[in-house]
């Protein structure tokens, strides 16, 4: 029996969803026009006024917002209410350049936590469950978002935050945690550690996991499900739009339902900006139609995915998005193969390496070369040279399985890879084509 947190919304008719979106979009455009001079100027430059927007059919008339706009408007330029009405900020990690700071009214927080509560309920969570939130707490949205959602569902919430794996496992076992929320790579790490401790899936009380905030493959899902003996659900979100819970997976585990009562999703051609029909791969664009403090219209996520309106077996009517296949701005073509840094990162994290890496592409005698430099960490270092070389070999094999390419892996000194100088630092393309 499928459970819903807000059944009247989650299973509403398509007509109802359309009506909500039309009405809220019109209202939101007016709110932004009146309160966000930065976006109003953009609209004026495009010759659009709120009078031109009568519903989602007019959405394409509105200008896009990009990460560059967020940086330019930092910190208050896109805030839509007086600061006295804001109760919180959250912020991105800043790994892609300047941090993005998002603002929330109490209503925005409620809306966000509702979205997370829907995700937890879709994963089978009820007030009988013990939900351990092992996402980081603080500026990062993962911990606060799922914590709030867990409260709304009525789960007994265990706010461990991330790190200290031994303590994570102790709480899971001692408090019989049934739901685990964290990044997929951390879930894999917790699983591996439990396995090393000799725990079999039936000795682990967990039954479901809600994992997001980074790209992960179906293979990784399978392996996490097997080691922990759980069902692993994906969750999607961006700090810019609130945080995790913009979209979430249901029992069908085949794509994430977007919370369309709060967010309008479009898929566009990243080159031309033209909206694409269902089933076509393109860049995901969101319009937040309820949020007051940080009301982003047509925000380009740079995530590449596909939307599907096909009827879902779970009974939810909201559109589904596929797992993001990567980002528009960092896809590489190496020896004719499309490579996303996120794929490489998944393999690295999966095998216990740090997320501090650099991808160096070159062309030697007409053949592309791929060199991945990874920082050594205290956890991966041992006095045994053979063991380090074995792990290095295993990493090359893991990369070949993921990318279909042979990469060279070079282990480099800690902190030797430059931090926070923008996304481009992840990739150095020396090819002269």
């Amino acid at each position, binding site marked *: 029996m499928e459970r819903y947190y807000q059944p009247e919304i989650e299973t509403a008719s398509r007509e109802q969803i359309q009506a909500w979106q039309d009405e809220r979009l019109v209202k939101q455009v007016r709110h932004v026009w009146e309160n966000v001079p930065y976006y109003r100027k953009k609209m004026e430059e495009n010759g659009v006024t709120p009078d031109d927007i009568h519903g989602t059919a007019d959405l394409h008339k509105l200008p896009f917002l990009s990460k560059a706009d967020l940086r330019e408007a930092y910190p208050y330029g896109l805030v839509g209410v007086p600061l006295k009405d804001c109760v919180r900020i959250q912020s991105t990690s800043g790994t892609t350049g300047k941090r993005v700071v998002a603002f929330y009214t109490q209503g925005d927080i409620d809306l966000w936590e509702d979205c997370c509560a829907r995700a937890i309920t879709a994963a089978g969570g009820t007030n009988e469950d013990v939900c351990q939130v092992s996402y980081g707490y603080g500026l990062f949205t993962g911990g606060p978002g799922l914590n709030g959602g867990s409260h709304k569902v009525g789960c007994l919430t265990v706010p461990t935050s991330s790190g200290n794996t031994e303590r994570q496992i102790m709480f899971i076992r001692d408090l019989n945690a049934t739901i685990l929320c964290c990044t997929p790579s951390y879930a894999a790490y917790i699983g591996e550690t439990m396995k090393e401790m000799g725990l079999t899936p039936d000795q682990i009380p967990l039954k479901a996991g809600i994992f997001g905030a980074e790209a992960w493959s179906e293979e990784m899902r399978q392996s996490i499900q097997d080691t922990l003996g759980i069902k692993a659900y994906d969750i999607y979100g961006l700090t810019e739009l609130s945080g995790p819970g913009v979209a979430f997976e249901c029992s069908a585990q085949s794509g994430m339902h977007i919370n369309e009562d709060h967010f309008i999703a479009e898929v566009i051609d990243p080159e031309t900006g033209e909206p694409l029909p269902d089933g076509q791969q393109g860049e995901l664009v969101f319009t937040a139609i309820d949020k007051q403090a940080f009301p982003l219209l047509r925000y380009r996520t740079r995530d590449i995915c596909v939307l599907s309106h096909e009827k879902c077996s779970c009974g939810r009517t909201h559109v589904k998005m596929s797992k993001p296949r990567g980002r528009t701005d960092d896809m590489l073509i190496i020896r004719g193969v499309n490579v996303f840094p996120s794929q490489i990162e998944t393999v690295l994290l999966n095998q216990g390496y740090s997320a501090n890496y650099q991808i160096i592409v070159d062309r030697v005698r007409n053949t592309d070369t791929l060199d991945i430099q990874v920082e050594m960490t205290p956890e991966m*270092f041992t*006095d045994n040279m053979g063991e380090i070389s074995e792990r290095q070999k295993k990493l090359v094999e893991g990369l070949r399985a993921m990318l279909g390419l042979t990469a060279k892996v070079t282990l480099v000194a800690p902190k030797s890879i430059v931090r926070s100088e923008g996304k481009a630092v992840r990739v150095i393309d020396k090819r002269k084509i």
Partner: protein
Amino acid sequence: MSVKQISVFMENKPGALLSMTTVLAEHNIDIRAFTLAETSDFGIVRIIVDDVYKTSTALKDMGFVYSISNVLGVVIPDVPGGLNQVLQILTEENINVDYMYAFQGGKNISGAYMIFKVADANKASAVLTGRGIQLVDQEALDRM
């Protein structure tokens, strides 16, 4: 009875080693023994020092990745067949030597000093002392 060895991860490139020895020099740390194992892109520097705590703290502060392991400091009788005798004992007890290297002892040298890395340092230590081979411990080393 064992000695603490510090193993440091090092990139195989000009200046890498210097950056580590600079840290040690700045902290007035005395290196008692030193060996380097390398592949084409990285290496492991293994050192025995007079102050393990000070060294590891200094390395950590400077962002080096290292690990500490227990190794044996063996006083090899300075006569022909001295090393042979030690290896004979370890072989009889089926103790494998992962690697070994020589080091400079103190002022009062009664034999040649060698560092032995074995899988089970406690067992090897007991076996060797039981057979009359002299070992040095960290304290003795600190006093040298």
